[in-house]
């Protein structure tokens, strides 16, 4: 029995499948190196050994067998990180129930998604493959590295990245409640279902703790509590093992979740979208909660009508760790441009603006010890730009993940698909511009909503 429990505990935490990951040895010569955290250096080299940054200095001699990339007149910066996306997933919304923490987007990974390559072509090396926002507590999510070219979904996973989970407040979860005639249909209901879930998880945790303790007593005979992957996952949130990423827009609901988390001792909290985060910036800062925002999206639904493109700047000035995200296979291709908008809307400095798409999202995903800046010892996830990355005239030229070149504009073959659909007709395109749904968070679930309410 004891053996079994140990076995169970081991298997409960999602198995970190050790996949074969390729690492490169590269010398990037003579670029303007933007480290983000340690300043910007001109005519400087970056040496990458076995997928890690091993030296940043001028005039590094080329070690034997190293690939050399000439970055003269180019800008070298850490790979861009997107704290909110849904690319590389075959499905994102287990919309059937208000509380589904047991599901995991890591099961839906799709290494063949062309969006991964297109993100690389925008300098993005890491993204957070989030569950959707159809339900109050959605699924666990996966932090991925854009190792496009691999056939193995396990290779996409960023090894040892902390666990994260999606929560959602406001119109999306209440809309789904309304569709089913179930809770939640209001923001009060959203608060309740989250509190209820946490409370049940607490009981569950206590029951198991009690059982595991009693079991050690010699001669103990008794039944174990009923196992539930749902409550197990919620308990892991309460234990601080999972970072909560919460879809939210309005100030009131943001404040509400801050209170819940305070009551249940949940400390690792990142708000997503958080369009009205600027209104509760002091509260966010005081709680140590972080914010991952759009640069300028607004007015596509009521709860984002009272937004401002100055959101990021206000949050930054109030001391909130802030990032700019995409939530979109389109926007992820030019996050460097989205970050630049904070210079227009709030006058952030170059380093501040670039932090929003590098070290800050890394902090929000708990991977800032590995990525998000160019520092010796960190992963060699690197984007090379022609012109300054915040200029409209910049062009991402080359993107490396773990020191391996995964995008090279000069060598781009038009057709970069890995697998080809044998049934595909070479005739019918998909016109994304006609797809006006901004809120990618509702993918899958949306079809139903549209049918029910005739919206969109």
């Amino acid at each position, binding site marked *: *029995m004891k053996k*079994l429990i140990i076995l*169970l505990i081991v*298997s*409960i935490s*999602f*198995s970190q*499948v050790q996949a074969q990951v390729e690492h490169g040895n590269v010398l990037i010569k003579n670029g303007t190196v933007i480290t983000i955290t340690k300043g910007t250096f001109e005519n400087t080299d970056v040496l990458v050994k076995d997928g890690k940054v091993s030296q940043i200095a001028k005039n590094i001699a080329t070690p034997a067998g190293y690939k050399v990339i000439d970055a003269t007149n180019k800008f070298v910066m850490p790979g861009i990180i997107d704290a909110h996306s849904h690319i590389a997933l*075959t*499905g994102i*919304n*287990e*919309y*059937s*129930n*208000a*509380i*589904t923490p*047991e*599901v*995991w*987007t890591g*099961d*839906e*990974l799709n290494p*063949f998604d062309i969006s991964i390559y297109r993100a690389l072509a925008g300098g993005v090396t890491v993204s957070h493959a989030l569950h959707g926002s159809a339900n109050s507590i959605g*699924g666990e999510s996966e932090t991925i590295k854009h190792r496009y070219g691999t*056939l193995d*979904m*396990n290779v996409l996973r960023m090894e040892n990245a902390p666990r994260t989970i999606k929560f959602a407040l406001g119109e999306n979860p209440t809309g789904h409640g309304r569709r*089913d*005639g*179930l809770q939640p249909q209001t923001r009060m209901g959203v608060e309740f279902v989250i509190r209820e879930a946490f409370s049940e998880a607490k009981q569950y945790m206590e029951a198991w703790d009690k059982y595991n303790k009693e079991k050690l007593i010699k001669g103990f*005979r*008794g*039944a*174990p509590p*009923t*196992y*539930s*992957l*749902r409550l197990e996952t919620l308990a892991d949130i309460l234990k601080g093992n999972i970072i909560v990423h919460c879809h939210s827009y309005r100030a009131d609901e943001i404040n509400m979740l801050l209170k819940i988390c305070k009551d249940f001792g949940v400390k690792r909290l990142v708000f997503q979208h958080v369009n009205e985060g600027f209104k509760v910036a002091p509260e966010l800062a005081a709680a140590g909660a972080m914010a991952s925002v759009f640069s300028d999206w607004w007015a596509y639904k009521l709860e984002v009508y009272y937004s401002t493109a100055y959101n990021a700047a206000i949050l930054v000035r109030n001391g909130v760790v802030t990032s700019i995200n995409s939530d979109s296979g389109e926007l992820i291709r030019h996050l460097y441009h989205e970050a630049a908008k904070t210079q227009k809307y709030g006058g952030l400095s170059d380093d501040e603006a670039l932090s929003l798409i590098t070290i800050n999202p890394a902090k929000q995903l708990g991977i800032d010890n590995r990525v998000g800046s160019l520092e010796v010892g960190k992963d060699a996830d690197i984007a090379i730009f022609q012109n300054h990355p915040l200029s409209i005239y910049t062009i991402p030229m080359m993107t490396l993940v773990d020191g391996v070149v995964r995008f090279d504009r000069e060598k781009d073959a*038009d*057709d970069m*698909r890995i*697998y*080809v*659909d*044998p*049934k*595909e007709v*070479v005739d019918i395109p998909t016109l994304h511009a006609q797809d*006006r749904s901004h809120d990618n968070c509702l993918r*899958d679930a949306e*079809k*139903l909503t*549209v*049918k029910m309410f*005739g919206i*969109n």
Partner: protein
Amino acid sequence: MKKFYSYPFQRWALVMLFCWPLLLLAQDDVLAPVSRTYALTNATIVQAPGRKIEAATIVIKNGLIQSVGKGISIPPEAIIIKADSLFIYAGFIDGLSRTGVNKAKDDANKDRPKDPGNPTPERAGITPQYDVRPFLNPADKSMEEMRGVGFTAAHVVPYGGMLPGNGSVILLGGSSADAMIVSNKNSFYSELTPAERAYPATVMGVMAKYRDLYRQATLTKNYQGLYASNRSGLERPTSDRILEAFYPVIDKRQPVFFKAEKVLELQRILILQKELGFTLTLINLKEGWDMIPKVKASNAQVFLSLELPEEKKDEKKADDKKKDEAKKEEIKKEEKPKTANELEKEVLEKRRADFIAKYVGQAATYQKAGVKFGFSALTVKSKDIPANLRRMIAAGLSEDAALASLTTIPAEIFGLSDRLGSIDNGKIANLVISDKPYFNEKAKVRYVFVDGVLYKQEVTEEKKADPNAKVEIEGTWSVTTEIPQGKSETSLVIKKEGTTYSAKISGGQLPQPVDASSVVLEGNVLKIAYTATINGQTMDVKMEVTIDGNTFKGKTSVAAFGSFPVEGKKEPKL
């Protein structure tokens, strides 16, 4: 934008259009044969891959192979079949399909449940306790179709969602469901198939539920063990059919058969297996060519899909191609240079063709890598099987390996090598007899023995379209349309006035008779078009059939829904 969403409703309308009471299969009275002993003489017998004997004889008695070889004595009570110039193989074994399996009655209920997050287990597709036996139907037409291409046994599973139930190996013929069974509960069948509009509604939902149930079952099984050893003072464990169904899997007494068609499905299943540790058999692999090292590492058994993507339509035979190319060379001199769009299309079409070749070459790739595999017919149309096998062989699969995958390997995987898979004394008399070597393009299956029972295959040439034929179509026809949901029957009345025909279609779900918008007869080909209105949905229906005396065969197509086989029979004049 909104209009687009009406499509799902049209799909419902399709079901409405054809969802008429299912036809009962007309059971002909067949007299039993005069003897259960047969002798097949002077045939080429392939006993097993690599074991061929010429001009040999097989004697079948009481459903078993009594003897096989040259110059063996023929019992006096034997019915002798002169098999000169015929080729005899052990009957083929299908690794997994639903041949002869009926759907559960409530299977069609896909309405949104009141609380989609908590559907009944049946609605969620969680019925691992089901046994395929109650669903077997010895009269199902699919059995006949599979026999027609040489299959005599199949491992079959119930219909359902993520956990449809237990599979059994059956013979493709028999007087009752029980008589068909060779071996029972061979598999714990699983799919990554979500429930429709209910939990689990996604693949990740299915995987989460799988983990949840598996771990729950592990704990309850242990507690039941503890309870059984000393019940006093312990809470009585409640019985749970669903969890109990997992016990043989947890004990590794029963393998999990997991449908793994797409490359990502395959990877996901391997992830589950690694976490939970069950014994795995991969089913109906279609895109497994890149995953061989992983498959090997998992120790999984493998059944490759017999379904292949269609060849490109304009792909011509080698001879024609050569002629075409010669012609092209001539024209080329005058031709304009290709536009960028044309060049792009060529490159893309080539990529697609290369990719189709990977599907076709999968079996050869597995053979080369030394992975043993059987075949499964889960998604293939039975009539495509021989051609698909030939395509695999043309792509490098050896004929012996193909035969082994159809016979000895599946027999071994199911632990039935003592009964099935080869032509040896004492084995069940399952044979397939063709007029040419089976993998020859022109080969036709003439006889099939299942459990010692002879099934003759009628070799009928399909009536070909003939523009000069003269046929009489006036009168009343009963028309049977076969759609995925079943069969339906309508009535078609054709009248002739002068040189033009008119037609009226009635019956089934049509609220009132509908006049055809056009009736065209060209030789023996009849084309009829009409518009059906059902519940406010209008649908254009086109029927094209070839007339053969008082019957016809052909296709009916419904706008946007594809086409379905249709047959007609003229009713005698009253």
